[in-house]
């Protein structure tokens, strides 16, 4: 854990700022903690507590919207107080505390809802200041690589989470509380690592402007165009679960293997996050971002068509994430003034997230009315049209 102090690291993380690696490791540990709970939550609620799935069907989904709003709050407050690390830390700490909340909540449905809300609130708060810290700790010319390294480390955590949960369940003879306690311990380790090894970046003080600086950011042409195009693409980006369902049906994948499909996506994301981030640094991040959407389009065409294999679809789906998830903030970050970086990234990512939520609802409706294949094809065509438009209108030209 000397990463932050030893300066530049040797290959493969050569020349990646120590602060970015430290943030990546914090995310890795936190993601192990979060994913182990996600993995057992349905099992815990239905089997451990004997709740009927209908009783909490409404619990989820409600929070996605709240998270989006809190992301804006997190970004705004972090910039306003010039305390990116503190606000991110509060977000990590909230999620850590929520893990022990499960022990206190017992089988009371509203209490479980509150615990989940606290967890999502923490995630919402921390995202924008964390990405701003990555952005401010990196050289603008290699920002793609920095985000790539962070996202790769984050994904490793996502891989380990279910494995750790399974190990704890096995070792404790199916004791769900043990999973929550372990998850809490890991999340708290994440907070400790953040406090000890991540250096805060202090941007210059905000000019004393009244009102919301976020709105003034949107007056800046390049940034506004990036937000609009990212949201427009998000509107036609098919949600993961639909992709997996379509893959399962197309190749008739056994239901016991079905939950493993996301691992295929995560695996490629992990492998490609750094190379594609670096490619973006070299040839232009917006090009890579759009290329990622092309990968998704090809994946969906394969799902609907007569040729191809399921692993190719998952690989392309992972490539889509590797080319978009970290590349977008890396592309837009340098456009933003240092003292408004968290706010700007929050606006960008919130717009994208809300658009993707709308997409999920639309696909769900189209699926109900038309069936899955026509719904996917219609969405894929629309995404192709928007991608071509985004390539023609080019909201930003990265020189490098």
């Amino acid at each position, binding site marked *: *854990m000397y990463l932050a*102090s030893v300066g530049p690291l040797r290959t493969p993380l050569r020349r990646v700022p120590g602060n970015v690696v430290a943030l990546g490791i914090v995310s890795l540990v936190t993601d192990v903690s979060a994913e182990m709970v996600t*993995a*057992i*939550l*349905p*099992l815990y609620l*239905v*089997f451990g507590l*004997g709740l*009927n*799935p*209908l*009783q*909490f*069907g*409404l*619990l*989820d*989904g409600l929070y996605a919207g709240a998270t989006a709003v809190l992301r804006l709050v997190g970004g705004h407050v972090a910039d306003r107080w010039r305390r990116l690390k503190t606000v991110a830390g509060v977000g990590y700490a909230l999620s850590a505390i929520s893990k022990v909340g499960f022990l206190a909540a*017992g*089988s009371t449905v509203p209490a479980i809802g509150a615990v989940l809300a606290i967890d999502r609130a923490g995630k919402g708060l921390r995202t924008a200041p964390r990405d701003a810290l990555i952005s401010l700790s990196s050289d603008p010319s290699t920002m793609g690589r920095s985000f790539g390294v962070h996202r790769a480390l984050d994904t490793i955590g996502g891989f380990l989470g*279910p494995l750790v*949960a*399974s*190990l*704890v*369940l*096995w*070792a*404790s*003879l*199916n*004791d769900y*509380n*043990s999973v929550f*306690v*372990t998850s*809490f*311990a*890991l999340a*708290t*380790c994440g907070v*400790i*690592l953040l406090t*000890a*090894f991540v250096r805060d970046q202090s941007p210059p003080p905000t000019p004393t402007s009244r009102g919301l600086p976020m709105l003034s950011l949107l007056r800046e042409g390049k940034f506004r165009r990036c937000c609009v195009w990212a949201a427009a693409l998000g509107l036609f980006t098919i*949600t993961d*679960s*639909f992709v997996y*369902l379509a893959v399962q049906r197309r190749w008739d994948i056994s*239901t*016991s293997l*079905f*939950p493993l499909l996301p691992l295929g996506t995560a695996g490629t994301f992990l492998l490609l996050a750094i190379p594609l981030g670096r490619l973006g640094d070299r040839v232009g991040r917006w090009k890579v971002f759009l290329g990622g959407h092309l990968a998704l389009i090809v994946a969906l065409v394969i799902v609907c068509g007569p040729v191809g294999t399921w692993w190719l679809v998952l690989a392309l789906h992972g490539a889509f994430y590797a080319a978009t998830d970290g590349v977008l903030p890396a592309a837009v970050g340098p456009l933003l003034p240092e003292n408004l970086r968290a706010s700007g990234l929050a606006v960008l990512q919130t717009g994208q997230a809300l658009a993707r939520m709308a997409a*999920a609802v639309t696909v769900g409706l189209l*699926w*109900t009315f038309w*069936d*899955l294949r026509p719904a996917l094809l219609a969405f894929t065509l629309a995404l192709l049209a928007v991608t071509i438009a985004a390539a023609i209108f080019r909201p930003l030209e990265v020189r490098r």
Partner: protein
Amino acid sequence: MRRRVVVAAIGVLALVGGAITYVAHARDGGAAENAVPVVTGQPMRFDGKTLFFRNLAEGPDAGKLAAVPVADPGAARRVGELRCDRFAAAHSTAICLRLKAGSLPAMTDLIVLDASLRERHRETLPGTPSRARVSPDGRFVNWTLFVTGDSYAATGFSTRTGLYEVDTGRLVKTIEELAVFVDGKRYFASDVNYWGITFAADGNRFYVTMASKGTTYLIEADYRAYRGTAIAENVECPSLSPDGRRIAFKQKVSNGVWRLAVLDLATRRITHPPDARPIDDQLVWQGNDTLLYPLRNSGNTLDLWSVGLTTPAKLLVPQATSPSFT
């Protein structure tokens, strides 16, 4: 810097150590004494005079299959070594559903047992145990498992109902291929879910709940022809009386709340036995006019209750669920 590293290392080690201690404690944790009288080493077999159930009373035997005489349900519980999350028995066959420890995504062992509770066959299928039944002639065992991640909502659930022919060894992992007719037309939909099979005495006719597009249907099906017809709506977890005249079921009151109800198959009349408390299980018939069902108690476990079609409910066995008579 060095001091920061040392403090952080101590913090991380303390947290990880604490978590490991907690897990180790949970492994051999739990109460050392049974909260209710329990006897071990007694034979447990089907004699037509025994009530089997899953023992929920705190202690080393919690979660085990237990037995009491039907005539004296308050007697000390006989337990063996068999642990089941869900149990059912009829004629000379029993089924025990058990969640596999540490399996993610969840997998369930389905264990078919004979009249002496010896294992005859075992299958492992994805999902968590929800319902289990044995046909009155003992030739079919059937089950319903909850499966996650099958639907497009991340926390959406679906049910998977299957059956196993004990004599031939034929396994039907899911009955979703059943040809179903609603209002005389063959029904097709991608979101069909089935739960809670109940077989008639002839070992061919069965009833099951089918849900699709927000409506639940009671399906009357013919196993050999493998086709079914929707005969009613809002009838969940059917349970056919031994004389084949009535179906006891859970009737939806609001989202996540159900109450006891009985459908007379000849007259299509629905009556409510005198217990309006919320239930969530497939009911069990004791004879043709008494119903058994678990209800949640103040300690957040379950008690077994019984109610007549017109006579008031009474507590049968506290801290128990998954009843069966054999």
